[in-house]
């Protein structure tokens, strides 16, 4: 097993871990963090799989994708945090109601 493959597996692990946390935790901050962990997992997969053959220089294209992805993730996180504060201001709790509104 090459180290790159191992990293990619860790990435998939992070993705799964984040998905689990997103589902089980109710607090919005935890959900937002879980999404970020998932995103990091995907980025790790992209970066790790860029090293196609051992020893050769890695493929730069996935690295460019990760940079784009990070920009997207940062702006999404900013929006999510701002929304979370609004949810708290409106409902008094940083959680979503279990039952969708009527």
């Amino acid at each position, binding site marked *: 097993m090459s180290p790159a493959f191992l990293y990619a597996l860790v990435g998939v692990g992070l993705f799964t871990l984040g998905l689990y946390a997103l589902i089980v935790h109710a607090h919005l901050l935890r959900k937002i963090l879980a999404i970020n962990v998932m995103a990091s997992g995907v980025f790790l*997969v992209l970066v790790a799989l860029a090293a196609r053959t051992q020893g050769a220089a890695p493929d730069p294209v996935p690295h460019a994708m990760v940079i784009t992805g990070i920009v997207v993730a940062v702006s999404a996180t900013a929006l999510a945090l701002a929304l979370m504060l609004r949810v708290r201001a409106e409902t008094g709790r940083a959680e979503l109601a279990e039952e969708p509104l009527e």
Partner: protein
Amino acid sequence: MSDIHWPVIVILLPLAGGVACFLWPRRSVLLGLLTALGVVACVAGLGWQVVEQGAQRYAVGGWGAPLGIDLYADGLSLLMLTVTAVVGLGISVYSSGYFERARYGQDRARHFWPVWMFLWTALNALFLSADIFNLYVTLELLGLAAVVLVALAGGADAVSGAMRYLLVSLLGSLFYLLGVALLYHSFGSVDIAILAERVEPSPAVWAAMGLMIAGLLLKTALFPLHFWLPSAHASAPAPVSALLSALVVKASFYILLRLWLEIFPFANAALAQLLGLLGAAAVFWGGFQALRQTRLKMLIAYSTVAQLGYLFLAFPLASITGWTGALYMLLSHAAAKTAMFMAAGNTLYFGGHDRIADLDRAVQRMPLTMTAFALAGISIMGLPPSGGFIAKWLLLEAAIRSGQWWWGGVLILGGLLSAAWVFKVVGYAFTRSEAPHEARAVPATMEWTALLMAVLAILLGLFAPWLLALLEIGSPFNRENAG
């Protein structure tokens, strides 16, 4: 005129318009309307180019695939751009009345226009993207803009709906991105045309396909992944609900269609059957839930869940007739649902509530709006000569030709469910309610745009041959896998 790079202009114009609306908030209504007209003109220019010269490919910055970003416009992209432009123009005109400063607050009126222009930019860029990574970026831009617009309504319902929508949207995008990573690793490209040549079945491809399809289904709100849609669509301001239901959910369906036809033509029949079954379940569940709702906007939102189900009936049919039927459904639903949400917005504006039981003789007091609702209802039910009828006819024909007549049963029962809730609403609109309420005059622009969109949904039935010819340009449907 033939050497103008329309694909770039179609993306840059709404972006520039959005920035202008942001910089000069006092003039935002005028700037927004001018931009909307400009985008319609530019899409027409692109359409002319595509019809005259065939599918267009444009390498941004002259780099070209596989390193650079390519824009690609064929008949399918053009169709999506056109429906976006037409519905977008209608929504812009409607919003100029809806976000009236005095009533809706300076802030919201100010924020609506730039975000709506950015959303339009994202939609146009999405329909013109030629590679799966660019599709991811545009999908995220679209999702973020849509979430902001939902939150614009303010209040606990809208903010919670927006938050749920944001989490779902990000989750779907991440599934999609992981799929992109696997595909890039396997074939060294993200360009759809290059991938179409190189892709062959392997475990990594199956995993990528599963991840991407799951992510996109979540974003398209296919039953049972529709849980986020009703609250987000119903709690948004009316023009926003209209554009979410008409355009935003269709964008992820468009990506799914592209991937299915071009990159995953070897997807097995069992998966197609599963998508068809989920579509059928969505038709019944959405229709049934719509019938149960007491609020007009919630009802229309559930009807969107049902109508999205029809789109997926084309997967098991897997014929050109089936795909064109689904696309026709997409078009006519966009026009009809826009008209319906606009009509709901008018009743909300008029009486300050959208309780169906208290519509209180809306027919006499707002004849134009209720006509719009009823006409849109005709298309949603699928009665001739509406666009919805042509769509169901094509799907029915495809079902019978492929020897899977039971999908036709879904179409007919779904139509009956729609008819039930349309007549329920229209019935209440004729009767006097127990608690009469204060009424406020609705601006004429809002009533007329709702009516025009509804008339368009009906007229779509008459344009069918012309629009279907458009799909043939550089069509992904002509490959042997689709027929």
